[in-house]
């Protein structure tokens, strides 16, 4: 297998740009990645998208986006792995380059959620669950996280406020971030007094509806000058339904993907300088921190509340606001995480820079952990 590097990154500002369609969003990010890499050759295109079929009635996004970036004819395919589509598409791109089958692979993700009303978006999001026995109960993605939230408090004695801190910490890091959906602070008081969304999860603990696109250009490490090396890229899955999991508070897919990534990259959690995790809700972020190996089981919420995940803490996490504040345009999210990790490792994160960041990790997760991808990137 060849070593793979990230040659360029691009993304749009996350928001609700009603005047722009999926093609325009995707093209901005993809062309941005090519420009950043100062490279024009592309041999293969992967398009990460979860909900186009629900939200725009659109599939076939491979051909559509190849054309949208001015390259009709390019081999192209859409990758869907629920909310982990972005991270999984990245993994597919890495495989294509590592195998030697392609040299230059563009991986872009896009989601446009603002086209539909909230109940339709909730239906699309719960599309990644078993339709006949999970979605059938009327539960939402947030509701499934809420079931874990209550179980977590019950098992480990964490207070709702300790868990709620995850949202406040993410917002702290979004201040001044030009591509963030909500680039402002959110106090823990405001989090904890916001209305219930799915008890015990409050509205300000959840990522909101967002539109956005992000892309990376991958190439062979020996042909990319000043590239950021992909030290590991892994994917794992778990039982789709929470009910089928013996211990729902351990996200097996996260653990498996992380353990394998550490092994491949010959690193340990203590070697990671910057981290991007999936905080679609606060508890998703807490459980991810634990199962990625950064906190003991049951101690993750306390760790966040006490400030150990801030820019100057033990493990700087969600350094541009995470899903909560940078925003969560689902299919693009995993690629925003990669792009942001690259910015940190290049030393181009401006006011958000974690000093001398050498190794970064990005974790993309579907639902409540049915699919998880982990990437470890390294400055060489």
């Amino acid at each position, binding site marked *: 297998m060849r070593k793979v590097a990230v040659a360029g990154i691009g993304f749009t500002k996350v928001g609700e740009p009603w005047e722009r369609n999926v093609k325009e969003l995707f093209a901005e990010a993809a062309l941005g990645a090519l420009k950043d890499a100062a490279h024009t050759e592309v041999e293969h295109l992967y398009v990460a998208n979860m909900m186009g079929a629900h939200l725009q009635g659109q599939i076939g996004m491979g051909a559509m986006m190849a054309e949208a970036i001015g390259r009709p004819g390019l081999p192209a395919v859409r990758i869907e792995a629920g909310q982990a589509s972005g991270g999984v598409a990245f993994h597919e791109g890495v495989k294509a380059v590592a195998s030697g089958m392609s040299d230059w692979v563009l991986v872009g993700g896009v989601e446009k959620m603002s086209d539909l009303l*909230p*109940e339709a978006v909730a*239906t699309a999001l719960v599309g990644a669950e078993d339709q006949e026995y999970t979605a059938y109960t009327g*539960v939402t993605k947030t*509701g499934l996280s809420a*079931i874990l939230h*209550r179980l977590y408090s019950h098992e480990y004695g964490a207070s709702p406020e300790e868990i709620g801190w995850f949202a406040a910490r993410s917002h702290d890091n979004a201040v001044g971030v030009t591509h963030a959906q909500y680039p402002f602070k959110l106090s823990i008081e405001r989090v904890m007094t916001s209305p219930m*969304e799915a*008890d015990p999860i409050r509205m300000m603990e959840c990522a909101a509806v967002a539109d956005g696109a992000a892309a990376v250009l991958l190439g062979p490490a020996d042909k990319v000058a000043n590239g950021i090396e992909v030290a590991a890229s892994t994917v794992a899955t778990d039982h789709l339904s929470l009910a089928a999991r013996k211990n729902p508070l351990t996200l097996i897919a996260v653990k498996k993907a992380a353990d394998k990534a550490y092994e491949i990259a010959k690193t340990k959690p203590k070697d990671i300088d910057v981290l991007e995790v999936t905080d679609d809700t606060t508890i998703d972020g807490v459980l991810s921190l634990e199962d990625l190996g950064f906190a003991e089981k049951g101690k993750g919420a306390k760790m966040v509340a006490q400030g150990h995940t801030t820019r100057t803490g033990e493990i700087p996490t969600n350094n541009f606001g995470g899903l909560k504040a940078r925003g969560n345009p689902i299919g693009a999210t995993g690629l925003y995480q990669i792009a942001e990790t690259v910015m940190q490792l290049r030393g181009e994160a401006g006011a958000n820079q974690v000093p001398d960041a050498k190794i970064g990790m990005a974790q993309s997760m579907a639902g409540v952990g049915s699919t998880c991808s982990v990437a470890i990137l390294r400055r060489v």
Partner: protein
Amino acid sequence: MSVPRYWREEKPRYRLMGEECAKCGAKYYPKTPVCACGSTEFKPYKLAEMGKLKSWTVIRNAPVGYERFTPYVVALIELDDGVQILSQVVDVEPEAVKVGMKVEYAFRKVTEDGQAGLLQYGYKFRPVVD
């Protein structure tokens, strides 16, 4: 929702019918083509109708088709035979729901598929009244 899609899940949903692996005895609800032990031989298995709540949430912003039921409780339930199931819990105010609460199977309308669509029935759970 097509009629066959509804019909083929009728037995599991109306009667809590799952399957049990003929080799290792693992119980599945819903049924699965291949057991974790590798076996593809299964026997019908009727789930316990009583259980207790492991955790729950209150859905306040519902997906399409469930809007008029809000707020409603969805719980992770451990049945008396050890099988876990996700289900709505009805006949109780959300404020009165507790971890460990005993619940039993109830047959109810679950959703309406559009104005002129299919009425879907199936399992919900309700508190056991002593």
